[in-house]
């Protein structure tokens, strides 16, 4: 029997969800627990994991399609299992379906198979955490006795279900051909989007993750090949102690060497910008163009309190006030965004690791590494984007750039231009990549 993949209920008041992206194409192999598709609600976007290992068949929902909660969107067949006709098409509804009117088009009613809640075992704290995180218990594998879902199972599921930030309205684009994100084996979590031409490697900032690029991804040309790297102790990358910027940069070079098979474009934001600059300095021949958004390392000043506050926050209430510093105006960060961001940070070990990283990179609230010399040496076409209302890193640090670097100092924009104004940033970066 194939395993049914349903549209999960990830929010209390969610009746349907918009399927954003398939991470696995029809007929491809899928592993239980791996990201299978993304959904978007009006509040947040999140990844849905594969409920089983096998091959994906009978994909019923295309990206952009809205599907009712509980309805199947695809089926996973065990390796070697015969793939028959779509189970949805052949399974007739058991309850009284409205009789098709004469002459009317045949009504296809999908059978909704609700998760068997009678068989579901979960501890009270697991139930509470799943409820708070908006996760469907049925989608979480229990590792406790008799398959009971325990706290650690939910925390792991939450850590995997990194919700995408939804700061600004993403530009509405027609659903293109299924976009496929593929994991890349290695020390850090690397995901790639196939496309044409020279791929763009993207490195996110401190306390963020690859999902934060989503608004910009949508603003970039659809055919642009993308490679996203999650920093250590961020996103889906493993927790790793990092003693300082140089050590972090060395680790990134190792990963970069495995990821970048040929020349690449390089883009980084904030700490990721600093790392992109270091990579460009160390591997100049491989980097076709460099795009830096509010990069770190160009001056001592940084809002250390906000960094530590974000890294430390253990609840939405303590996280939200710090997140509000990210955008030009505090209103730029909604409570739902903070909630989604907190979901990705529920693991205390991750928070501890990020606090440690903050202490190593930004001791006493100071940027302890200086990349101005590296910036001077940059020989490839380089672009720098900075919000003039950046409360985390002062935009005047951009003035350290030599004359060849194209500076774009955006008015009314804070520390996350790629989220606050993805259209402008996408246009600037897109033009830069094309040369």
């Amino acid at each position, binding site marked *: 029997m194939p395993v049914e993949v349903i549209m999960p209920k990830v929010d209390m008041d969610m009746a349907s969800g918009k399927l954003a992206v398939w991470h696995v194409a029809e007929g491809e192999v899928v592993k239980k627990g791996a990201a299978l598709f993304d959904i978007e609600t009006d509040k947040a976007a999140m990844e849905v994991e594969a409920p089983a290992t096998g091959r994906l068949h009978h994909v019923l929902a295309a990206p952009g399609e809205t599907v009712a909660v509980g309805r199947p969107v695809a089926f996973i067949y065990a390796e070697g299992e015969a793939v028959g006709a779509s189970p949805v098409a052949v399974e007739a509804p058991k309850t009284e379906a409205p009789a098709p009117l004469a002459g009317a088009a045949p009504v296809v009613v999908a059978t909704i198979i609700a998760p068997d809640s009678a068989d579901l075992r979960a*501890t*009270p*704290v*697991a139930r*509470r955490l799943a409820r708070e995180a908006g996760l469907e218990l049925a989608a979480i594998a229990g*590792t406790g006795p008799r398959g009971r879902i325990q*706290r650690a199972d939910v925390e792991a599921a939450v850590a995997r279900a990194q919700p995408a930030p939804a700061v600004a309205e993403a530009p509405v684009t027609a659903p293109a051909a299924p976009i496929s994100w593929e994991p890349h084996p290695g020390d850090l979590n690397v995901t790639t989007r196939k496309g044409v031409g020279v791929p763009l490697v993207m490195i996110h900032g401190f306390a963020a993750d690859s999902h934060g690029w989503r608004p910009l991804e949508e603003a970039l040309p659809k055919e642009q090949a993308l490679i996203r790297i999650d920093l250590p102790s961020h996103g889906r990358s493993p927790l790793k102690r990092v003693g300082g910027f140089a050590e972090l940069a060395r680790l990134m070079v190792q990963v970069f060497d495995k990821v970048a098979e040929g020349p690449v474009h390089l883009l980084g934001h904030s700490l990721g910008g600093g790392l992109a600059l270091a990579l460009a300095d160390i591997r100049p021949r491989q980097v076709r163009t460099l795009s830096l958004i509010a990069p770190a390392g160009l001056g001592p000043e940084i809002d250390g309190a906000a960094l530590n506050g974000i890294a430390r926050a253990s609840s939405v209430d303590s996280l939200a006030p710090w997140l509000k510093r990210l955008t030009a105006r505090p209103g730029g960060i909604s409570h739902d965004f903070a909630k989604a961001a907190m979901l990705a940070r529920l693991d205390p070990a991750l928070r501890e690791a990020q606090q440690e990283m903050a202490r190593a990179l930004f001791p006493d609230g100071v940027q302890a590494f200086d990349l101005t010399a590296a910036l001077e040496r940059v020989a490839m076409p380089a672009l720098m984007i900075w919000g003039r209302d950046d409360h985390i890193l002062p935009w005047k640090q951009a003035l350290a750039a030599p004359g060849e670097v194209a500076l774009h100092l955006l008015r009314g924009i804070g520390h996350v231009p790629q989220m606050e104004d993805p259209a402008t940033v996408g246009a600037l970066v897109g033009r830069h990549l094309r040369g």
Partner: protein
Amino acid sequence: MNAQVQIDAQLRELSYAEAIREAMAIALESDPAVVLMGEDIGTYGGAFQVTGDLIDRFGPERVMDTPISELGGAGVAVGAALTGLKPIFEFQFSDFAALAMEQIVNQAAKLRYMLGGEAEVPVVFRMPSGSGTGAAAQHSQSFEAWFGHVPGLKVVQPSTPAEAKGLLLAALADPDPVVVFEHKLLYKMKGPVPAGHYITPIGKAAVVRPGNAVTIVASAIMVHRALEAAAKLAAEGIEAEVIDLRTVRPLDRETIIASVKKTGKLLCVYEGVRTLGVGAEISALVAESEAFDYLDAPIQRLGGAEAPIPYNPDLERAAVPQSPDIERVARQLAKGEV
């Protein structure tokens, strides 16, 4: 009630029995209303030599031998308390309290209520309790839950010499009847005891070992077995939090609930018969509380066997929780295997 805790900086090593004797001596010296009563507590010094030489120091009018009738002796103590004395009545074995239930449960516990608050019964019942001494089925029981079931009584279970002294002085300061369960196996246990008068508050449990992996609530000798188990678990990286219950009635809900909210796992360890025992009550109060939403495993209980305490020493040991039992269940809880 004198809630002020006065602890001398000077700590001596005293045994549990010596600490109780010191508490009684302080009380006899400082308050002429205090009298000791019980079978063979005078010249003989008590079945477990707890009163010792107090008769020599305070005389037979303050340290009274009572006839071999628990009902009669307890009745005299309750009557004396009702008329202004503060008697400490010693049972030779807590098992024999069964003979005096009328006086403890129907009289001492009820009189304040029955007389509309006009009377008080400041009596203290000392009860040598528990198994492990080879005293067999009629001399080894743990009746905390029996008396803890009676409104009007307070029930305490000291686990260390310092607690034994502080809880006895707290019991004396309390205007209502207090039942003190002293564990027979602890009488010779030595520990630091502050000099002078001090009180260990009734109704307050103590976190005697902090941890975050699992909460172990224990009382009397089970505290030591739990601490022993916790030390072994710590070597495996499992930090168990051990709570010394100290008082069975009224239970310290706050301390227990706060701990379970932190650890998400609860193991109740008690020597009394498992069914309907103290741990059953703790389990229920946690399940009913806001800590429910923090539980990450079914609550576990380790209690006494559903059987009389056997005479055979091996069977006697097997009939009540031992340190390896606590270690095993706490480990399973911490590892999410329960």
